[in-house]
């Protein structure tokens, strides 16, 4: 189980576990528009040590709550173009029910708790920090 930040495009071998029958992967990508405005790019930054620690806690809590066999998440930092993957969550469970539920749960917690921020830069040149104004 690991929660990692990455300055490089997300990659790596898929999760594997001999007792797992259900593997679910979620990938969040940069959309071309937001609120009717054309997006140029997103700029992500993180308070790395706490982001990794809090991300690890989220995964451990999910492992216990859903009875997972394994879970992993990777989140980009840096400048992302439209279409690029910003976050990937992978879970392995004995069965699909807990794998699907856990993956969604983990994504919700990441968005709520992990100290990562994104600046949305629109094609018209305006930019703002999502959730913070400015």
């Amino acid at each position, binding site marked *: 189980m690991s929660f990692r930040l990455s300055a490089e495009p997300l990659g790596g071998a898929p999760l594997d576990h001999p007792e797992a029958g259900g593997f679910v992967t979620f990938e*969040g990508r940069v959309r071309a528009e937001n609120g009717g405005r054309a997006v140029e790019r997103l700029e992500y930054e993180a308070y790395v040590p706490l982001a990794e620690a*809090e991300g690890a806690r989220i995964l451990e809590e999910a492992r216990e709550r859903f009875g997972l066999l394994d879970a992993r998440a990777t989140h980009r930092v840096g400048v992302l173009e439209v279409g690029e993957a910003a976050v990937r969550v992978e879970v392995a469970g004995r069965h699909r029910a807990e794998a699907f539920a856990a993956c969604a749960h983990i994504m919700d917690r990441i968005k709520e708790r992990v*100290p990562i*921020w994104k600046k949305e830069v629109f094609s018209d040149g305006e930019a703002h920090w999502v*959730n*913070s*104004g400015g």
Partner: protein
Amino acid sequence: MSRAVTVEYFAVLREERGVEREELETEARTPGELYEELRERHGFRLSSAQVRVALGGEFARMDAPLERGAQVVFIPPVAGG
């Protein structure tokens, strides 16, 4: 009583403050008081109710005691994913 602390800034706070980190002396007894002091000095838009704080790399309460040498990070509303 004045104490030396280190403050690290991210996202909108980093842009408003103009630096990523600074060492400063403060009379503030809590991170909340420190934030109010910095907000007044630098014109931060976010209120102290809108930011969280980390001390020594872990989430902390805004009314936690602020110790000499504290490593303070003010955390604007997060937006991962």
